């Protein structure tokens, strides 16, 4: 099939950037979206033009590196997948496809479609861990009983791959779904209880400091999340923070 691509081109962080049109032909419906971009880039290289810079790594939906806002949605029109799992069969011959970077003040553009998502790392570093004594007497994790339901919910939260689609989809550029997943995966487990109060406060403070917007519960994040992270996690995050902030200090 033949397609018109409208792609955001921006030389570097300081460049103003603009949308540039490209025609691409003979695209197979079996290609993945990223393969289609690979073909475009080979073409650009042979023409001695600068290839389009975009993020990718595993190309199998597990690393969270691929991004892209495609036709008005992060990761394109299909639900529950990353961009590397999107295939060209989701488009029709003659389609025009808008390809933009994830947009948020907290995700500054590095080049073209690549954005800096290290704000997520800093949120994670501020509290997204459990302290474990590794002195050699480490207790077997299985020795601590965890109710099945809690274990399942914690596991679901832990499937977040930190892709940033939730931020990209949110009209407020809020990072609540990501942060709530990272808080929930520990809040539900006995191992996470010890540092629970400090964790939620530090992570929310870091999230706010990074310049993400405020959640207004539109649910766009949940709808666009490739891993199906649920809004329940945001409610839990709210609860955890309210609990931590209103707790009587001893």
């Amino acid at each position: 099939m033949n397609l018109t691509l409208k792609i955001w081109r921006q030389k570097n962080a300081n460049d103003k950037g603009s949308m540039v049109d490209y025609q691409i032909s003979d695209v197979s419906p079996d290609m993945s979206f990223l393969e289609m971009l690979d073909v475009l880039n080979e073409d650009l290289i042979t023409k001695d033009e600068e290839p389009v810079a975009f993020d990718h790594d595993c190309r199998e939906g597990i690393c969270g590196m691929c991004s892209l806002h495609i036709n008005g949605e992060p990761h394109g029109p299909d639900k529950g997948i990353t961009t590397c799992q999107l295939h060209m069969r989701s488009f029709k011959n003659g389609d025009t496809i808008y390809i933009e970077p994830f947009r948020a003040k907290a995700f500054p553009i590095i080049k073209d479609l690549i954005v800096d998502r290290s704000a997520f790392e800093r949120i994670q570093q501020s509290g997204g861990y459990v302290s474990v004594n590794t002195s050699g007497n480490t207790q077997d994790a299985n020795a601590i009983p965890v109710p099945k339901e809690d274990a399942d919910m914690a596991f679901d939260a832990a499937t977040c791959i930190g892709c940033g689609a939730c931020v990209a989809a949110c009209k407020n550029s809020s990072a609540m779904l990501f942060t709530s997943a990272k808080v929930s995966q520990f809040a539900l487990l006995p191992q996470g209880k010890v540092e629970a109060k400090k964790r939620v406060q530090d992570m929310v403070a870091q999230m706010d400091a990074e310049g993400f917007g405020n959640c207004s519960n539109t649910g766009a994040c949940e709808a666009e999340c490739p891993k199906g992270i649920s809004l329940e996690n945001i409610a839990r995050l709210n609860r955890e923070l309210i609990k931590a902030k209103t707790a009587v200090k001893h």
Partner: protein
Amino acid sequence: MSKSGLFKSSIGRKLAMALSALFLMIFLLQHLFINLTAVFSEDAFNELSHFMGTNPLVQFVAQPILIFAVVFHFVMGMYLEMKNRAARPIAYKKVNGAANSTWMSRNMAISGLVILAFLVLHFIDFWVPEINHKYIAMAPEDPTRYYGELLHKFSNPARVVAYIVAFGLLALHLLHGFGSAFQSMGQNNKYIDGLKKFGVFYSIVVPLGFILIAIALYVTGLK
């Protein structure tokens, strides 16, 4: 470092939005109830209005709290809206919002501003004359005056239309806001589905009630 107050955090602020909203939603029920009496009994409406208009607790405690809640909900809402806009300085060229969220949820600021415009009108219409009557002109209280004043106001079709538009938008505002308030308070559990269903019922029935009463009063005035 992060031990700062709850209401300085993004989550605390949305909790504050939810709590003020909850208060306003309860107030709305009470207002609807009083309006409803106007349709069924002139005397009951006069009696209730006289009570609300002269009881010092209502006048000097409840009323200031209400005004504060409205102003707070508006100011905080606008502040958050501005912060949220600033969180995405460069807009997408193409956004398919309908693919992941409802129109109501994305346009709370718009429906909110229309409701606010209506409230200003409503204040000029009812509150300012009331305050003038009671506290400035110091006119003698006539406990039977309210119903006649009300009918007179609703004889103007433009006012009835403004009511319909404003309460239509209030319904949209509530359709997102009701469930959203509970989510913000951290309630997303086994009760949330029932609560959300009740929220939809509330969001449609309450504004519709105000609209129907406005129309009923207009029709009564025609006779």
